[in-house]
């Protein structure tokens, strides 16, 4: 999704300036986007099926609500995205320049609409709004617009999409740095670095402020137990500290080896250092997030990496502005080596959101243990889980090989097979 936006940037410059190098750069990233897209489609289909196959009891009760955004994703986004991606990849000769640019825009739009509906779906599970519970227990939508404009969803959407742009920027900048360090394809490397670092500087700042900040405050007010667990705050405190490092110990209910800064958590959540922040002691044990240490680490990994992203991208942006970046080898190395980190940060962010919601499947309304398919035996569940693990390991390897080959081949004009 981040890459979709960056391809639009490349195509726009190409269209404006008529510079063929920018067009080739767009085509190159288009091929990489296509590989991502295919792997995304084939791994995405199971996600939609899983609602029914593995979470039948949940689907039966909630279909009237979250079936809606899921179906809208298919109808409004997938058709758009797949149709125009086909045109973008296969149709350059059959389309005018403007039409080809337009396909790139539509692919980007499709992927961002898709993200929106998925986040709306997740947001309803995190923060259910606009529903009515029927006598037999199932949920119906009361207001379509309130469902789509769930404040939780809007905040999460901004945060998530910014995270996608961070990932796209880092990958693009890293490929640019790789080419420069190898001493080849200077003309493309400069383009990639420029676009990657500028987009990266903007998005890495935005991921923390305002989007991360707002989203965090909203979590603290609406899922206080999740926030307490994310921060490792076992006891309620006035002027609560923020724990930068340390390991949560569930037995003794404290953080081992803490490095903490007093008052900061209160300030971040409530804007004043003296505010009271609820700790886990305020909640009965059966409402604590189930995998507490994992949640704590996910959140801290995400936040720690986010800080590194801002530092690196701002320094690189400064170097770029002074026109020095392509000669500073340590900065190029840092960019190159940092490319996997946004993937980790995004995954950790999603784990934070979903683990934080536990033990609830629909927050406050339905527990996770009430939602799975009880007709599917544990043996069948394990069998298919193992199957998916094997399949996805294979896919991950193939994906890496394919992307590496594309990068090694580079954006030069050549006879290409789509």
């Amino acid at each position, binding site marked *: 999704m981040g890459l979709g936006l960056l391809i639009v940037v490349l195509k726009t410059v190409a269209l404006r300036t008529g510079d063929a190098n920018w067009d080739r750069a767009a085509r190159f990233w288009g091929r990489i986007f296509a590989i991502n897209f295919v792997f995304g489609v084939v791994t995405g289909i199971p996600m939609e099926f899983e609602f029914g196959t593995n979470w039948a009891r949940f689907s039966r009760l909630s279909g*009237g609500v979250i079936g809606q955004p899921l179906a809208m994703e298919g109808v409004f986004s997938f058709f758009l995205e797949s149709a125009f991606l086909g045109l973008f990849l296969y149709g350059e000769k059959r389309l005018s320049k403007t039409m080809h640019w337009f396909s790139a825009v539509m692919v980007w739009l499709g992927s961002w609409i898709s993200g929106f509906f998925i986040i709306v779906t997740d947001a309803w599970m995190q923060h259910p709004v606009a529903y009515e519970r029927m006598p037999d227990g199932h949920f119906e939508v009361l207001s379509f617009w309130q469902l789509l404009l769930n404040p939780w969803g809007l905040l999460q959407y901004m945060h998530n999409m910014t995270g996608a742009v961070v990932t796209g920027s880092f990958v693009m900048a890293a490929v640019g740095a790789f080419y420069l360090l190898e001493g080849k394809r200077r003309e493309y490397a400069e383009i990639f670095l420029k676009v990657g670092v500028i987009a990266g500087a903007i998005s890495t700042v935005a991921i923390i402020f305002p989007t991360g900040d707002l989203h965090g405050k909203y979590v603290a007010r609406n899922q206080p137990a999740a926030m307490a667990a994310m921060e490792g705050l076992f006891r309620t405190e006035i002027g609560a500290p923020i724990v930068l490092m340390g390991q949560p110990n569930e037995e003794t209910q404290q953080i081992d080896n803490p490095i903490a800064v007093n008052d900061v958590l209160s300030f971040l959540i409530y804007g004043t250092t003296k505010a009271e922040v609820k700790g886990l002691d305020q909640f009965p044990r059966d409402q604590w997030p189930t995998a507490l240490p994992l949640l704590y680490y996910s959140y801290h990994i995400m936040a720690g990496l986010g800080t590194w992203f801002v530092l690196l991208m701002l320094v690189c942006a400064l170097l770029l502005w002074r026109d020095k970046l392509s000669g500073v080898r340590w900065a190029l190395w840092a960019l190159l080596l940092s490319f996997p980190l946004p993937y980790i940060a995004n995954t950790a962010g999603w784990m934070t959101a979903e683990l934080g919601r536990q033990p609830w499947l629909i927050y406050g309304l339905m527990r996770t243990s009430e939602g799975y398919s009880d007709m599917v035996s544990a043996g069948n569940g394990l069998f298919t889980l193992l199957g998916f693990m094997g399949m996805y390991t294979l896919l991950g390897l193939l994906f890496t090989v394919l992307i590496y080959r594309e990068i090694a081949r580079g954006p030069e004009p050549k006879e290409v097979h789509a």
Partner: protein
Amino acid sequence: MMGFIWFWLVAVMIVGYVVLDGFDLGVGVLHLFLARNERERIITLRSIGPVWDGNEVWLLAGGGTLYFAFPLLYASAFSGFYLPLMIVLWLLILRGVSLELRNHLDMGVWQSLLDGVFGLASALLTIFYGAALANVIRGVPLQATGYFFLPLWTNWMPGPAPGILDWYTVIGGLLALVALTLHGALWLVLKTGGELEQRARSLVKPLWGALLALTIVSLIATIAVRPSGLDNYNHYPVTYIVPVGVVASLAAILAWTRKGAALKAFLASCVYLFFMLAGACWALYPTLLPATTGAANDITLTRAISGPHTLAVGLVWWIFGMALAVTYVVFVYSRFRGKVEAGGH
């Protein structure tokens, strides 16, 4: 009324999926036999390259529509058909990835392997889809709670405790394999030239013969397995137009192929698939998933349907969204009309 509308809207999505993804599945089955060299193979695959993932979207959009319009049916059927659905998912993954990979890896042995995977996965998918539809027509052992779970096979008989595969659903699977392979062959006649086109054309007649035989067999078998399937037709005799349409479109496929009207022949095949599926839906209506454990356990329209507000709002965006979607589909197909050529993008 809402129930009636949404029943047919979901049916439309299924027909859209079968008609569109059907031909690229058929091409997947055929490419192993038809393409004799690398150039022909590239042309064959390129004929579906820009459209196959868009075709698969119909499955996703259809699944989503089913989910929100009939949550009970979605929950019950997807968990009950757990094992075959997982196999379908794995096949879809293998198929999509092998097609994408073979365009990137230019090493002979790997390409042969990937072509094999692509062809085999395509063939198995058509069989599973056919068997799935036959399962729905035959019925499943629903409990009073609205749930069931089917093993892959039991004693291969469509009794009260059947498996996914029995003699009846196997016929359904074979029917789908032949129908979609023919559909793919007609697409290739339309989209390719030279020897490749000739070879595809020469396959049409034997496939057509097999399809005619299987259509008749499956019709008789369906009446034997589900005699109540005729009730709707007898109640509204005008709907006997559906079997007439099946026969007419079958005849048209052969007639137009003989005349060399490739586009018309392909469209006739689309119409055939439409009538077959619509006929099956009409035979079931208003039951969505019949029970082999007594009609009281049937999942019916009124039992499975979402609330009126959900459906009313849904209708507005659905019509708007699908109008847009059809526009894209028409646009893409019109951009890629004509025969496929090798080389270049």
